[in-house]
Structures are given as C-alpha cells and as structure tokens.
C-alpha cells in the first residue's frame, strides 16, 4: 500500500505532522515507517501537548536518585536501599474492556518498576467512575476491580491503598490509574540507556500477537459512539507470564550481563527499541523474522505496533547470550536475539532479508512535535453567601448519615477485600487508612504510600485544586507517621485541543508545581492522559498524586482508629468554616458554585511538620487528616475503626455547628493524645504557632455532640459500611 495523506490521517496524525515526516525523511514513508511515526508521535508517547508545561515541575531533591524520563522514578530511603515508583493511566482501554484494560494497566506499571531492577512490593490504584445511577457504572466498577485483583493477586504483590470516586463527568470516560512501588539496592538500578556497538538486542517474555495494535493511538483520541469497535486495540493480560518474567529478569539482573533494559509497553517493540537507542545516541538493527510470534504471517507493521503484554527488550553484554538464555529457559519464557546496536543512528528493520524500514532516530524522538497549545485562565469563583438561617433546618444526625453513606465517603471494603493486601508478609497498614504501609523486608524501616485526587476542587479552580491534591498526599503520609519524600503524578484531562481543558491542565500543573516546590516534595515520575472525552464532554480535571514517605522505625507507625477511652482529641489547624465545594454544600445544599478551600502552604507545612514531630516524640496515639466531609466525617471514621465513641463540643467560635463540623478548610488533622501529655503537646503546638482546638474526649460507644445529639457507634457503622456492598449486590 502506497502511503498518502489520508492514510496518515487515519493513523491519527495531523496534516502538518505528515508533511513534517516527509520533510524529515526527504521522501514518503512506507506503511511500516508511517506506523512507527504514528506510534511515536501520538500524545501518549510524545507528550507533545504537555512537555512544555511539565518542564516547570520541580523534579530534583536530596533524596531523588532518578527523576522523570526513565521507566520510573527512584528515591533514596537510606542504608543503600531505594524505592522505584510510578503511576500510570489505563483509562481508555478500561472503558472499552474493563477487566483486561485494568489488568494490563496493573501489569504495565509493575513492569515499569521491575525493569529498573526493583522487586515490586506494593500496588495502589485510583479509579473513577460515572454517577452511581448511570447504567454502565456497576459493570465497569465490577470489571475494573476484578481486573486489578486478577493481575495483582496472581503476581503476589499486595495492593495496599487506593481511591475510588463517582462523578457524572466520568460517565463516558472512566479513569483507571495504577501505581507500583518496588524495592532495589541503590547500586543495582537498571536503566534504559543502551551503550556500546554490536551489542546483542534480546527479546524475552511472551510471544508477539495481533492484540493491542494502535493501543497508544487509541488512547490519544476522544471517544465517540463507535468506541466499542475499538475493542481489538485493548491488550490481553497474562499475569502468570509476567510473574515468570519478573523472576527471570531479577535472576538475570543479579549478575552483570545487562547493559540496558526496557519493557515493551505502549507502542511495543517500536518505542522500546527506539528509546534505548535514542538514550544511548546509537542506531539499532532488528531482524523481524527472529521475533517470536504467536500468529503466523504477521507483517513487519503488525510486529512493530503490537502491544502484546509481558515482553522485554534487553541490550546484553557480548558473550552473555547463553547464560541469559538458560535463565529464560528455566522460566519457560521465549528468548531470542533479534538484533544489535549500530553506529548508524537509524532504526533499521529487516524482514525476509529485505530492509523494510530505515528511519533516523532523532526524527522520531527529538524532532517529534511539541505544541504550545492555546489555553484559557480560570477565574477564582465568587464566594457563595449562605444565609445562617438556612443551617437551622438541618438535623446534624441526618446530615451525617447522608455524608457518611455518600459514595465518595463510604467504606470501600467491598473493593479492597478483593485485592490480596497481605501477601509478602510486610503489610502493616491495610487499605482503608490514610496511607498503605509496608515494611522494607527484614529491616525496621517501612514505606508509606497514598494516592489522591480532588477533581471537584480542580474543576472549581484548577490552580488551587492542583495545590490541594499535593497537600492532601502530604497529609496522608504524615497521618501515618511517615516523612514525605516525593510524588508521582498521573494527569487525567480532557482534550488539549480545547482551550478550557488545556487551561485546566496548565493551571493544575502550576498548582502541583508550587506546592511540590514549597513542601520539598518533588515529582519523580508520571504520566499524562489527555482526550478523556466523549464527543464534546470532557471529564473534570483529575490529577492523581501518588505520594511516598519513609517511616524509620515501623513501630512508630500511626493508624486512625481511636485507641483508648478518656484520651483527648485535638483538631490541629484552623477551621474557618469554608463550605463552598464541600460535600455539604454540593450534596446537602445542592450548591455547586463557589471557590474550593484556600491553600496556605505555610500553614500546611508548619502544621504537618509539627504533627510529625509529635508523632516522633511518641505523643500521638491516633491521627487522621480532615478532608471531604469535614471534621465530623474524619472523627466518625476514627470512631468506627476504633469501635469507640466520642463526646465533643464545638469550640466557641463565631460560626454555626454546621460550618464548624462540615467545612473543608485545609491543613487540618485530628489527633488523639493521652491526658497526661496535654501540657507537653500544647507547648509544642504553641511553640510552633500551630492553631489547635481542644475538641473532645474518647468514650466507650456513642458520639455525643454538644451534649445533646447522640449517635451510636452501630449507627455510624451502618451509615458508612453498607452503601457500596448493597449497591453492588
């Protein structure tokens, strides 16, 4: 088939992009070459709309060993240990085929981590669905949860935390973001930069099939009514093969045979071979007849664009082929020498002894398009004036019931009970807490991880929302006693070709950057997912932030369950009564306008560091950050988990009970302390100028509000625990 402009457009390329390809090559590409360009130049692989803005994020720091640009980020956790981690989206495939889409998302991110030599030790996920009333939601949720569990459970990697939300803006585009943490010795990290001439290029893992062809291109376009037809672009996962691949790769990595290694993820053999050569400033030559294929008569075009899963490309030291082959044979995996590194600086493909493609690598990578797209600034909305009399008609107990059973607040146990969260024997904080925590095997250290997003705040004001998500991640780490180290981000947005959506992206990234900079909480890896859009309707801007922190002595880890009767409960941070964009305003008052709560980075840092100091001084028995639903929601969860009650009174502020209890001001925590330590705690808080309220006292079984409203623990539990399981069954 002779290539022309229309064929290029059918491959998702723009007219100008096709022209640029012809100019760069000084000729018309053949079909295989066009396929390679389309795979490398799509949004998913080239970051052409986002690169300009991502450059502004802070990516370095004392603890950063590897920032963005590799398969995953790497941070130092002392004693020669390092944590490799990254989050990635698998949104488009998960909507089309929820089980396989979610499963291969989990498989892909684990591969990114073990490609760097790290054994995966924890998985997390952030999943977002349409309204619970929407006809597709239930099946999508079930399929995604089964897919995540199906893959992670089989791999034997615990899923330790996650986030699930429901919002009608995801009706036509769900989000599935998967995150993995791996553990590696600092001096045994593997990179994707090839080096040296005539080094053998090795293909290992599963055979190449016709699945997933053009997956990355599909993920770089909006949906329309014919989306079901795209099913063949969704890859099919085989976690068993990936488990073998993990063990085989780690066995080979124990030696010194590997120069560079890269997993075949999006755009398969194309992007993996080109990235390794590009980073090493080399050429690469592949003989496609040598690629192990699952089906007969696969063309060079199909081989290069297949996104079959569980495959790796390795550049080996000369003479190590036999040793490597023996390891892969032991694990019953395919192994083939398919090419070599060259000094041509081209990717050259051969098939049936004929050259079928030859492209200068710099045209695919450095010369790929980069756009400075038009974007629109969002104004800070005006505050709503809610009349104080309005609040009087609400009974606190009824509102609390509605809030605790809200799909975005209720217990997600139905989900995480389907994930193996205890395998590997080091999970010391299970899902359902502020962060998941796993011990660093055989040491006193533990690593905490959390994944967060706040689409409502980002939608109301992207700049504030972007800052808020980073702060929430920071708070969730501190609440378990971990020192925050770094984040990974998964930026889920609508079409960058629309000024509003591009504006949301630019300003969220700016907010993320400002908060990361201030908190010294750098971004070490991430991924951008645009085109989460069906026809004209895009999702609410949803940056997911995956935060990682270190607990030096795991015995100092904190959980949120109230521990002991008669202990005191303090609220750290100032409550201003900000209700706009709160769950209360949106779901009880039905008021969807107004600005999100303001972020004060100074208070955020000061409050967080002070809470961490109290924890390190062994003065805190339980802790939980205050997030959606306000103080009363946070306190209710601590009661439920600890099976204890609380008596509290609203401090004498000039605001109503409703404002105090349901407002969503930022930078706040609830902590439990022993009465004998009150003086000591007060003096530390005062010394650091941290505002706090003496709030209440832990009791055996009821929540008593202002001496008059009584809610029993069983009532709290039934509000919070039943919604999701009832909905799903």
């Amino acid at each position, binding site marked *: 088939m002779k290539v022309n402009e229309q064929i290029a457009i059918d491959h998702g390329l723009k007219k100008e992009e096709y022209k640029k390809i012809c100019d760069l090559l000084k000729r018309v590409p053949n079909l295989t070459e066009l396929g390679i360009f389309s795979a490398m130049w799509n949004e998913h692989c080239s970051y052409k709309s986002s690169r300009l803005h991502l450059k502004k994020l802070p990516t370095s720091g004392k603890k950063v060993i590897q920032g963005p640009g590799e398969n995953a980020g790497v941070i130092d956790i002392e004693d020669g240990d390092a944590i490799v981690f990254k989050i990635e989206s698998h949104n488009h495939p998960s909507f089309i085929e929820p089980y396989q889409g979610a499963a291969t998302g989990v498989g892909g991110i684990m591969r990114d981590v073990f490609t760097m030599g790290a054994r995966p030790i924890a998985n997390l996920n952030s999943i977002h669905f349409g309204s619970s009333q929407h006809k597709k939601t239930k099946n999508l949720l079930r399929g995604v949860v089964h897919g995540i569990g199906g893959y992670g*459970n089989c791999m034997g990697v615990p899923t330790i935390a996650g986030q699930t939300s429901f919002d009608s803006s995801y009706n036509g585009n769900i989000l599935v973001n998967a995150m993995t943490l791996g553990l590696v010795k600092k001096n045994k990290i593997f990179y994707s930069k090839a080096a040296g001439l005539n080094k053998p290029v090795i293909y290992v893992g599963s055979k190449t099939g016709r699945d997933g062809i053009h997956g990355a291109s599909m993920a770089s376009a909006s949906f329309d009514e014919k989306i079901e037809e795209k099913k063949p672009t969704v890859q099919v996962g*085989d976690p068993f093969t990936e488990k073998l691949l993990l063990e085989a790769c780690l066995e080979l990595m124990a030696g010194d045979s590997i120069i560079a290694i890269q997993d075949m993820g999006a755009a398969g053999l194309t992007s993996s071979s080109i990235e390794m050569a590009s980073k090493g400033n080399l050429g690469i030559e592949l003989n496609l007849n040598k690629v192990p294929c699952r089906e007969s008569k696969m063309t060079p075009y199909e081989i290069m664009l297949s996104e079959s899963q569980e495959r790796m490309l390795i550049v080996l030291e000369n003479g190590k082929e036999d040793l490597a082959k023996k390891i892969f044979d032991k694990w019953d995996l395919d192994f083939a020498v398919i090419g070599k590194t060259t000094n041509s600086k081209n990717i050259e493909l051969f098939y049936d002894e004929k050259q079928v493609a030859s492209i200068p690598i710099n045209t695919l990578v450095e010369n790929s398009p980069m756009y400075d797209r038009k974007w629109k600034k969002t104004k800070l909305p005006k505050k709503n004036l809610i009349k104080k009399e309005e609040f009087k008609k609400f009974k606190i107990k009824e509102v609390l019931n509605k809030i605790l059973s809200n799909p975005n607040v209720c217990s997600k146990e139905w989900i*995480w*009970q*389907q994930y193996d969260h*205890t*395998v590997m024997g080091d999970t*010391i904080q299970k899902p359902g807490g502020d962060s998941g925590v796993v011990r660093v095997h055989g040491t006193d250290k533990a690593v905490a991880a959390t994944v967060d997003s706040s689409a409502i705040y980002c939608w109301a004001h992207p700049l504030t929302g972007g800052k808020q998500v980073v702060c929430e991640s920071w708070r969730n780490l501190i609440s378990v006693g971990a020192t925050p180290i770094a984040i990974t981000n998964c930026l889920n947005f609508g079409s960058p070709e629309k000024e509003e959506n591009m504006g949301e992206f630019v300003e969220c990234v700016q907010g993320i950057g400002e908060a990361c900079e201030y908190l010294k909480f750098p971004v070490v890896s991430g991924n951008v997912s645009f085109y989460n859009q069906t026809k004209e309707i895009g999702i609410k801007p949803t940056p997911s932030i995956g935060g990682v922190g270190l607990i030096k002595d795991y015995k100092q880890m904190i959980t949120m369950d109230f521990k002991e009767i008669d202990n005191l409960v303090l609220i750290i941070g100032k409550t201003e009564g900000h209700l706009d964009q709160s769950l209360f305003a949106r779901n009880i008052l039905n008021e969807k306008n107004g600005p999100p709560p303001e972020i004060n980075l100074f208070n955020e840092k000061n409050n967080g560091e002070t809470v961490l100091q109290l924890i390190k001084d062994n003065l805190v028995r339980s802790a939980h950050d205050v997030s959606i639903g306000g103080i009363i929601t946070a306190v209710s969860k601590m009661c439920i988990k600890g099976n204890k009650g609380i008596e509290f009174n609203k401090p004498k502020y000039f605001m109503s009970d409703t404002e105090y209890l349901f407002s969503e001001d930022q930078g706040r925590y609830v902590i439990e302390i022993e009465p004998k330590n009150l003086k000591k705690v007060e003096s530390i808080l005062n010394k650091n100028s941290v505002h706090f309220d003496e709030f209440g006292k832990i009791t055996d079984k009821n929540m008593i509000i202002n001496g008059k409203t009584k809610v029993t623990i069983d009532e709290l539990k039934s509000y919070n625990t039943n919604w999701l399981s009832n909905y799903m069954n």
Partner: protein
Amino acid sequence: MKSAVITFPGSNCDRDMHVALNKFGFKNKMVWHNDNELPKSDLIVLPGGFSYGDYLRCGSMASKSKIMQSVINFAKSGGLVMGICNGFQILVESGLVPGILLRNKYLEFICKNVFVKIDNKDNPYFKNLDKEVFELHIAHNEGNYFCTNDQLKEIQDNNQVAIYYCNDNGKTEEKFNPNGSLKNIAGIFNKEKNVLGMMPHPERMIDKSLSGEDGSLFFKNLINNIK
C-alpha cells in the same frame, strides 16, 4: 528440624512460608518444581500462589510436576506434607486429600481475617495447642470446599476435618462461612493425618504488626510436635 518449600512457576507465598519456617526454628530449603528429589526433610510445604496461573484448574498442572511424585511418595511413607491455599488445591488435585475446591460462592476473591475452629487435635499439626479458636487470614478465589456425600461421611467418620470457619466464639454457622464451603470446612487431613491441606495462611500472622499472631502459635507448636 528440616523443612522444604516447593516453588512452582507462579507460586507467590513461597518466600513468606520460608521466612515463617525459619523464624520458628526450621532449617528450610527451597525446592524447584522440576527437581526429581526432595532434600531430607521433616516437613514438606506446598505454598500458596497461582501455580501455572491457575489455568485449566487451580493446582491441576502443578500436581503433575516432576517433584510431585517424590512428594506423593514422601506422604505415602508417613512424612508430613502441608498445603496452604494453592498448596491445598494442589493436594486435592494430586489425590493426597479428598474433595475439590470450587470458586467462592460470590465469585469474588476474598482477602480478610477469619476465625477457624480446630476440631481434632489428635495429629502432629495441632496436638498440644491450648486453644481451639484461631484467627487466621484467607486470600483466595477458589476455597469453596466440596465433596460427594459418601466422601463426606468417610471424612467425618475418620475425623479428617482439620478446621472449620467459625466466629470468635467458635460457632460454625453458615453466616461465618466466607466462601460457601461444605460444612464450613476450611482444611482437611488425609486418613492418616500426616497430610494437611487448608485455605488460611498461618504464615501471614507471625508478628503483631501483621494481621495478628495466631500463626506464630501454630508454627511454634508444630516444630515442638515434630522434635
């Protein structure tokens, strides 16, 4: 005391079991499924995981592994063989214990703490334990034990039920059954009681920072019984 844990392709609780056995005083060796011979051992463990990806039927392909012939011979000569979770599935597929394991009743993977009641202490695994109800952890998709009426009668006549799912007071009612298994059965013995298959993972409950410590009681007692 010496033990050996078999690693099949897809096993993923082999390391956890190795850690637990060593912690309580066993000298454990890892054995590859494709080996012919077992090292000299007082206890052989088939660990949890997804041997051969649970493809075909859970445990069926692993039950035909090269090493399994030696494991079967070892069991037939009276050696102690314990299968946990996927290991239990391999035991039923290889015929070392009766019955089969179906998919969980609600067709979902379940990972949580459960209580189990020990029915019969006249065996090397549970002898000398000073309590009956244990809190252990399950994590499986196919733990729904099933057998024919004739088999059930034989199992009960021979006291072969090792543990039942129950509540914290030891009540073995249907509502405390997490996966629909027949008579709340969570683990069974062979006729001679030297082979034990069970769904719960004692190796995940070996220190107080984990889900609990009842697994420690099990392993401490086990090594004392073998000594």
